[in-house]
């Protein structure tokens, strides 16, 4: 089933019939190349028909979402987001629609901007949404930043290494939950490891704390300075210690194995899979 069909199905059981009728009528208009004013007004007024309740999808719905679009995770979507994104996926795919979405984004209120960013997960013509998605990484509005960064497969699939690394480092910087980034382990890379090593050193120098999940993104590509950081974390609080062990276990360098000898029990737990980033 397509994302469009799934969204409509979910909305049908959550919106009043008149609201669904309105939405279907607008979607049909949009599909045939409606005027920009129609797109903009229906995108804005969606909320009046949809309300803002969480979609609260069942497990089977989330599985259907993953089957329709790899990595799609609408678990935290609300009805207004689903309705707005249903309208966006109804537009004819291509650069004209993508540019129209850029203009919608320029004048978007906060909720609209969030919907536009979450939509990237399911929109066709992914290259058309790249600049807009990258713009959200520069946003100071945390909801907008998180809409593209967390539980959204688009960045891992589309961002180049510069965009990806900026996103991951900023997620740590603004203290959003990095474990909710899709494709985090898959996109580990040496420059990111170096940036995160610097961030850890900077935080330590300032006497500030940071999420121990930082070591997760650093471990696989750690260089000698990264291992210095991990060595220090190994001597830190219990949670830092566990994170350092997991990161060292993911690092192919011989020095990592040597460092791990200091924590044989935790190292064994990491190897056995009983210590993970999820149960850190």
């Amino acid at each position: 089933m397509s994302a469009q069909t799934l969204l409509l199905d979910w909305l049908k059981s959550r919106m009043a019939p008149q609201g669904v009728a309105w939405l279907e009528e607008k979607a049909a208009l949009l599909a045939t190349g409606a005027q920009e004013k129609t797109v903009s007004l229906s995108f804005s007024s969606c909320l009046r028909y949809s309300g803002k309740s969480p979609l609260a999808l069942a497990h089977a719905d989330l599985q259907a979402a993953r089957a329709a679009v790899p990595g799609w995770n609408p678990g935290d979507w609300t009805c207004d987001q689903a309705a707005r994104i249903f309208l966006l996926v109804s537009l004819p795919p291509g650069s004209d629609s993508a540019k129209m979405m850029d203009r919608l984004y320029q004048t978007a209120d906060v909720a609209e901007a969030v919907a536009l960013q979450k939509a990237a997960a399911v929109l066709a013509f992914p290259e058309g949404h790249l600049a807009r998605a990258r713009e959200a990484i520069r946003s100071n509005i945390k909801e907008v930043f998180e809409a593209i960064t967390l539980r959204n497969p688009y960045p891992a699939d589309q961002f180049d290494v510069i965009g990806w690394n900026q996103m991951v480092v900023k997620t740590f910087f603004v203290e959003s939950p990095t474990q909710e980034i899709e494709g985090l382990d898959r996109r580990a890379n040496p420059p990111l490891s170096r940036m995160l090593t610097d961030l850890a050193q900077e935080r330590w120098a300032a006497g500030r704390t940071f999420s121990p999940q930082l070591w997760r993104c650093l471990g696989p590509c750690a260089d000698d300075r990264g291992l210095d950081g991990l060595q220090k974390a190994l001597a830190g609080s219990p949670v830092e210690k566990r994170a350092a062990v997991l990161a060292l276990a993911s690092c192919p360098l011989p020095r990592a194995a040597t460092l791990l000898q200091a924590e044989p029990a935790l190292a064994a737990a990491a190897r056995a899979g009983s210590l993970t980033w999820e149960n850190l």
Partner: protein
Amino acid sequence: MANESRPVAKKRKLIDPHIHMVSRTTDDYQAMADAGVVAVIEPAFWTGQPRTEIGTFKDYFSCLVGFERFRASQFGIKHYCTIGLNSKEANNEALAEEVIELLPRFAGKEGVVAIGEIGYDEMTKAEEKFFRVQLELAKEMDLPVMIHTPHRNKKVGTSRSMDVCMEHGIAPSKVVIDHNNEETCKEVLDRGFWAAFTIYPKTKMGNKRMVEIAKRYGSDRVIVDSSADWGISDALAVPKTADLMIASGLSEAAVDAMCYYNALAAYGQSGQMKESDWLDLKTVDSKKEFEGNSLLRGGGPEAPEDSRIIT
């Protein structure tokens, strides 16, 4: 601290229904939240420096529904706005035409509670034209109207604003006439409009005068605001006026009406502003999640133990 004398346990909920937060600092947001302000309305107005390009209007309106809304939320304050072309800049006719074209794109958005602030500055022909065009837009969108009354020739300008609203068939109950004074308020109230008073040092209303007005005219359809902006103004004008009203013997109910309920009733007619919007907010605590998001690092209310220390 400005509000040390306010009893914390009995903190009154307040709305400032006219304040230009884009010009204010986070210190103001913090002080307003501490003083009991739960919601603000930010009318679109001029920004001191006349704009010369349509793009600056577009970005200004976007800021009102975007970044400013977010800034306020960090302090647990609900931010609403009004959208409109102000009377001063209506005099740049070519640009004004473009702004009018842009308005429908914003007027239907979430949290837009009125068309405003519109009306007269010098009462020129251009001002008249764009005032009327926007009254028609308010009718079409079924939104309340916020009227800015002029500094010069105020009494005539105020009467004329109401005449024009009536001519366009807009119910007085959907129109807030703002920046009233002792000379204008009787007519405004007699004709059934909402009468807002701006507590703004030197140029508009003082809070002692406001107390006298409230004693004389009552609290029905009377609204207190600050219009604090980039000028010498006071973001705590509403809490300070509420305090002075209580200290001067006005009833709790009257103060609540003028500093909270009347604004909610007037702008709530938009369908975009409900008391539950802020009553349902979780208590602001920068250590906790807020509306599903933890606050930005460094943002949010967090009183340092020693104000000389910056962490």
